[in-house]
């Protein structure tokens, strides 16, 4: 009995030894001969996904991500909580926001295959963009070169237009909410100038979204206008939890499907 | 020549700068039990380790049945069986499996031989139990069984009676004599106990500080050193008379000790009686090897 067990272990070991040697050989062969083969581009097979429930796709920058919110939810998270209370339907949220994203990068992102698929599935699309284009980490504020700002705005307009048209080409049905900018520097000197810049910027955003059906520009400027320090995170740029909640409430009021 | 089974010539071992073994020479003959006697630390175990190839000697040659250990290791080892220090075997295997294990390392070995050695050492009943359940005596016997597996010409046992009880010691002694006399093996037994060597060995090499200081047959050694103990009345007259008759006279309390000389003892006795000395006791005495050892090493104590 004991002898048989030893024999069994030995024989198993010998065979597995051969197997592993073969595996290693194969790995080396495969690794060093890999240039011969190549992957054919995968056919864009139609992906069937469960269409029940409500799909929300959030695109954009750190505001979509929720930077500055202690709980990390951001306005998207608070909005979801609110919606779940209001509706029995299953919610599915895809948050594709990337910190520091500018309109150029977002225009690139919406061209990605998987992002397009998500957009196609969406019932509602939320976008926060432009903050990084305009403020460039506070640099714009330091320079206050109106000529330059004008250039940035033109660039931004072109990108947003591209983003929205790309979304519309994928999905004609979904409501698109483009969330406007607030002025985080309203408490500082030159507040009048900066506020003017932000208002102009928002106006441009509203104009562009007006070109597309079912695209809604959501202003936030007024939310932060009076008590900005109460609603900003310690970096004096991103909203804090209360700030995000304000944005979420405003968007929630507009949502329908 | 053919009856010399083990020959050791000019064996030396230097470790670092210390010369552990200075010069060791001896020979083992077929069918004899050879004692290797010395205090702890004299170099017995080191020498034995060199004999079986565990330690490489610095110089000198060891031949087992004509095969040099350092050159013809395999052939030399086929003719030797040994237990070095304690009989250490695999505790998680049974006695039988231990024997099988070592049998597989020998050329041409079968189950029959294993059964044979098991019977020889009398372990039949417990052979399939795990070694960790064995008593020291049983381990000792299993160790010997293991050493005997390959039918060696030379058997080396390092302190074979260490830790055994008196009956075990007697058994072991008889067994060793049996191996030498009936199986014709040469057995090398090391010990620091002189009485043991005295009881089972034919010849003895006395080793101290890495040197063989004396090699002789046990009986010759003993007879040379035999003493006669007298008790005489009146004491002083007797002592004076004996002093005239022989050189060596030692007084010890009421007794007098002289050499034992077979041809002259009768005459001395007669002369004492004629002179009116009463011989109350005449006692032949074999001195213990202990005494000899002290004598040879110039009064140096054992250990």
């Amino acid at each position: 009995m004991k002898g048989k067990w030893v024999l069994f272990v030995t024989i198993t070991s010998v065979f597995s030894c051969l197997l592993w040697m073969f595996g290693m050989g194969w790995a080396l062969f495969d690794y060093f001969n890999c240039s011969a083969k190549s992957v054919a581009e995968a056919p864009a097979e139609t992906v069937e996904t469960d269409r029940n429930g409500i799909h929300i796709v959030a695109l954009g920058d750190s505001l979509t991500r929720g930077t500055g919110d202690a709980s990390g939810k951001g306005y998207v998270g608070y909005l979801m909580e609110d919606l779940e209370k209001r509706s029995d339907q299953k919610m599915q949220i895809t948050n594709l926001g990337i910190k520091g994203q500018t309109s150029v990068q977002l225009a690139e992102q919406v061209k990605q295959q998987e992002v397009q698929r998500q957009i196609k599935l969406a019932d509602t699309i939320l976008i926060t963009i432009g903050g990084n284009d305009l403020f460039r980490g506070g640099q714009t504020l330091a320079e206050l070169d109106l000529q330059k700002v004008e250039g940035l705005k033109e660039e931004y307009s072109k990108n947003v237009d591209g983003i929205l048209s790309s979304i519309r080409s994928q999905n004609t049905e979904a409501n698109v909410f483009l969330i406007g900018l607030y002025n985080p520097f309203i408490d500082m000197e030159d507040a009048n100038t900066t506020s003017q810049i932000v208002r102009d910027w928002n106006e441009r955003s509203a104009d562009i979204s007006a070109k597309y059906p079912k695209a809604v520009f959501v202003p936030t400027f007024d939310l932060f206008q009076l008590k900005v320090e109460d609603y900003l995170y310690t970096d004096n740029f991103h909203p804090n939890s209360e700030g995000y909640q304000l944005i979420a409430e405003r968007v929630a009021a507009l949502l329908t499907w | 020549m053919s009856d010399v089974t083990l020959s050791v010539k000019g064996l030396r071992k230097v470790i670092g700068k210390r010369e552990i073994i200075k010069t060791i020479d001896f020979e083992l003959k077929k069918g004899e039990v050879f004692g290797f006697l010395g205090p702890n630390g004299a170099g017995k175990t080191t020498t034995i380790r060199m004999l079986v190839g565990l330690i490489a000697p610095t110089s000198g040659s060891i031949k087992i049945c004509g095969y040099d250990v350092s050159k013809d290791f395999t052939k030399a080892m086929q003719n030797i069986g040994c237990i070095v220090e304690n009989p250490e075997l695999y505790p998680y295997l049974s006695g039988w499996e231990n024997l099988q294990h070592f049998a597989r390392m020998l050329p041409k070995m079968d189950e029959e031989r294993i059964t044979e050695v098991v019977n020889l050492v009398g372990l039949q009943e417990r052979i399939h139990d795990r070694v960790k359940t064995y008593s020291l005596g049983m381990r000792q016997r299993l160790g010997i069984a293991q050493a005997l597996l390959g039918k060696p010409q030379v058997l080396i046992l390092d302190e074979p009676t260490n830790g055994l009880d008196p009956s075990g010691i007697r058994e072991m002694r008889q067994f060793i004599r049996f191996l030498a006399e009936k199986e014709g093996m040469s057995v090398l037994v090391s010990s620091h106990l002189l009485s043991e060597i005295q009881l089972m060995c034919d010849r003895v090499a006395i080793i101290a500080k890495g040197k063989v200081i004396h090699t002789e047959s046990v009986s010759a050694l003993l007879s040379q050193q035999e003493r006669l103990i007298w008790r005489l009345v009146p004491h002083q007259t007797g002592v004076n008379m004996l002093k005239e008759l022989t050189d060596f006279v030692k007084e010890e309390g009421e007794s007098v000790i002289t050499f034992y000389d077979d041809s002259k003892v009768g005459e001395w006795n007669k002369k004492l009686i004629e002179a009116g000395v009463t011989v109350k006791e005449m006692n032949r005495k074999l001195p213990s090897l202990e005494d000899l050892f002290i004598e040879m090493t110039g009064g140096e104590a054992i250990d």
Partner: protein
Amino acid sequence: MINLVQNEMIKLVRKKRLLVVTIIMAVLISMFTYAQFRESERVQERLGTTDWRTTLQQQIIDIQNRLSGSQISDEWRKQLEIRVSQQQYYLDHDINPAEPGAPTFVRGFIENSIQLLLPLMIMIVAADLVSSEHSTGTVKILLTRPVQRWKILLSKYLTLVLSVSFLLLMFGILSYVISGIVFGFKGWNAPVLTGFTVEAGELNTAGTHLIPQWQYILMEFGLAWFVSLVVGTLSFMLSVLIRSTAAGMGVMLACLISGTILSSMVSSWESAKYLFMINLRMSDYLQGMAPPIEGMSLGFSLSVLAIWAAAALVISFVSFTKKDVY
């Protein structure tokens, strides 16, 4: 020779070393399976979907967000960038990098344990192969048999090779069976991408090709076998050189653990790539991960490990045949 190997196998099996290691593996695998299960549940809950594309997209976005953080080290950034491009490649080609099922678990598990866990298991067996003979004193009988010393050591080494193979097989079977109970047993034919290479910190997809998962797993196990064998050989050498099993294990343990720590911080210490413990993550080359130090490749790691193992073997044999046994 066969007799000697048989002896060694008997001792190994009867000492229950293999059994102990197998049990340790089973326990650990169960734990990892459970952890993995919880993790996949959590992800599902968070995203509200079981669609892997959404999950993967989310992972990419998560990494991109980490990349935009400022307190990230350059090496780590590079690693992450490569991972993102790789995941993007999977997504663009519509291939699920983690098809749910036991085979995927096995694949991920071997990748994660090739550097530390597996070598540790091997070490438990290898470290006392020779030194245990010293500690029980049986070496004295073993070496006074009419068998040359190098043959005895060779038989022990062959036993090591066999037990490494056996343990790796057990590792595979156990992780497949245990994780299969939770994740299901299917997925052997799921496609896996291999052949990514990292050149100057950029992911190169020129040589990328698809292979079935079973082949990928076999290849990974082949490399894991080699790695285990090298670690086994080194422990074996320590077992010959150091009489005490515990001390040998300690030395090996220190090496292995320092390897895991070092490989995350040595990119500026270039000559560290010649240390064996930095080169253990061989499966990363199949995966196309950035090596810890610039200039390392499968061929490089293979040669470094082979040289270490060969040196260890030579030292073991020379020492074992020449050394006096007290």
